[in-house]
């Protein structure tokens, strides 16, 4: 029985119970007696960052090797505002960071999105490298390679202080990620989102049927940049420290690895990828502080060779097998 296209569309939009599983796990984890909340917070932040990349890479097919540019802009916006302007209220600072990063996304998107393929890849990278160098040169403002120190952040809602155990950070990041996920989910299931998938599959055809390709690309690029900026601001607020790393090629690469690992173009790939990558890094570096990178590399090679859809792609294949056997 084939679904009517409209029904198919609606079916994707409807919330399936399984989609609540990651949230149940994340909330449940908080109450575990031995929960590693600092690591949990880091995972939530990177999941948000990877989710933002999924919008441009997974759904629209824009390959970016410089997404840390927006992560870093967000982190520095929140950090500098707290450090120099006394803007210590966290939630409004988070929105401010998102807006700044989003604006940067519009400006750089209008320039770099005119190109595609390798040129686009290089340009996204160049933007991040340039920003990093600027942040390095403005040592009096950003602290340069020593990092931006002395950030003070007020308690969230005036009630919850950022504690040493990372409880506040974890819940705060979880709520922000949840809201961002609702936004992202709404976007990809909207007609606008379907248009993005169309651009990914065949941009020429999309413009032939009258879709404003460039405008849509810039729009989603800006939304993605804003979400990445919020993720960066979360990192700045939870660690109360910003370093040049947030603009580094490594961060751009790590987030890409997470997304590829988890599975692109499926929203939840970001969650799975960030969790697996960071947990693995943490565990491996406990076993071997010097050679943990090898394990991560091996997993990535295996994923790319044997599981093109990422880890969640594997789950899909497994489910399809089970269903196939049943019928």
């Amino acid at each position, binding site marked *: 029985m084939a679904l009517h296209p409209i029904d198919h569309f609606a079916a994707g939009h409807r919330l399936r119970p399984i989609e609540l599983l990651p949230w149940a796990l994340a909330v449940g984890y908080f109450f575990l007696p*031995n929960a*590693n909340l*600092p*690591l949990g917070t*880091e995972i939530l932040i990177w999941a948000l960052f990877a989710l933002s990349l999924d919008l441009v890479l997974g759904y629209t097919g824009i390959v970016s090797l410089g997404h840390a540019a927006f992560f870093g802009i967000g982190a520095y916006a929140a950090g500098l505002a707290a450090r120099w302007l006394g803007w210590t209220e966290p939630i409004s600072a988070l929105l401010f960071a998102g807006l700044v990063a989003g604006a940067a996304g519009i400006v750089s998107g209008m320039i770099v999105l005119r190109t595609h393929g390798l040129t686009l890849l290089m340009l996204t990278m160049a933007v991040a490298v340039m920003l990093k160098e600027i942040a*390095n040169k403005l*040592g009096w403002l950003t602290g*340069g*390679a*020593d*990092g931006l*120190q002395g950030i003070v952040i007020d308690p969230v809602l005036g009630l919850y202080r950022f504690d*040493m*155990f*990372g409880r506040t950070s974890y819940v705060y990041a979880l709520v922000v990620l949840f809201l961002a996920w609702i936004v992202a989910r709404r976007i990809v299931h909207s007609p606008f989102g379907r248009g993005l998938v169309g651009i990914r599959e065949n941009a020429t055809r999309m413009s032939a049927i009258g879709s404003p390709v460039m405008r849509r690309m810039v729009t989603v690029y800006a939304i993605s940049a804003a979400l990445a900026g919020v993720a960066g601001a979360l*990192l700045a607020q939870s*660690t*109360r*420290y910003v*370093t040049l*790393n947030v603009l580094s090629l490594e961060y751009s690469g790590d987030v890409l690895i997470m997304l590829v690992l988890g599975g692109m173009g499926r929203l939840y790939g970001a969650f799975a990828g960030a969790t697996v990558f960071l947990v693995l890094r943490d565990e491996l*570096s*406990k076993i071997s*502080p*010097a*050679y*943990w*990178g090898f394990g991560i590399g091996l997993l990535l090679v295996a994923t790319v060779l044997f599981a093109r859809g990422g880890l969640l792609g594997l789950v899909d294949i497994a489910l399809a097998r089970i269903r196939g056997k049943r019928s």
Partner: protein
Amino acid sequence: MKSMIRLAAAAALAFVLAPAASAETVKVGVITTMSGPFASLGQQMDQAIKLYMKLHAKDVEPHKIEIVLRDDTGPAPDVAKRLAQELITRDRVHMLSGVVFTPNAHAIAPLATEAKMPLVIMNAGTSVTTTLSPYFARVSFTLWQSSYPMGQWAQQAGIKSVFTAVTDYGPGHDAEAAFIKGFTEAGGKIAGSVRMPVANPDFVPFIQRAKDANPEAVFTFVPAGRQATAFMKTFAERGMREAGIRLIGPGDITTDEELPSMGDVPLGVVTVHHYSAAHDSPTNKAFQAAWKQEYGANAVPGFMAVGAWDGMHAISHVIKQLNGKIDGDKAMALLKGWKHESPRGPIMIDPDTRDIVQNEYIRRVEKLGNANANIEIGVIPAVKDPWKVFNPPK
């Protein structure tokens, strides 16, 4: 029934007679750099700690030291901070130590203060660091300790103009400021200054600029390890020596463990530093011999290893004195004024600043047998961190 009672009585008796001074296991969290471009630094630290544990773990008996080592991947304060958070809240360590990079130490400072967690700094050498938390104590060095006397020495050695080239982060800024102060106070002239990026720098343009300024000497600081070797090689390739320009700096640029990979390029380079593997003392000879026995005849422990070695001595001093029950404030009280005969010479932790007081040596790279070594040609005894002398706490 009777036997049951007897058994219970025996169990109760055993409980009562259990030794009052129970053996404690003191967990020490070590945050250092084990991967990435700076991995060699953390490895020296790790090796020194392992050697210490092998030879001296018995010193703290009946107590035990358990080392929990974590990799901070390089100058990455966010990672260091999370690791410290984990070590304190999850692994429940009693003390922290390690820390190669200044920014990492700075990120940990608020945590150490909040948790009253003593941190024995084994390397990170920016002067301001120890002022950031009352629970920081340093057994390594500060850049001011070596670079300020270096400036005075350069003037006395008849060098009239110097170009400075330092890495653009905390310790580099310190080295630059300290040298310029020491040198210009004594009447020297600065021909120019550049700062070089921390990550993967290409030294050619900077050395070319130094050459164009035509000074009598170049003063440089780069992070010890591979970068220093790269700088040294570029310095030779650019024909600086042929142009009659000398190279001077803190000992980070001619560390003992990197000298073998530098070839004959650094011959004649004069540095000021607190430790040379060639330092002539029984303590150092024993340390060097133990190291070679453990890691092979060609292995050379440098100042990174000595910092970690002395750090472990400081930690076990605290454990012994507190009988295995670590309390942050008591531990800091014991570290203040702690004196020790180190492979580098006599050292002390300044009771006022919790920073290291030690001899600084003027050394020249010379042939010693088949290998090159930092040969000490002068000593400045018991140097306190000059920056703290010039900037007393308000």
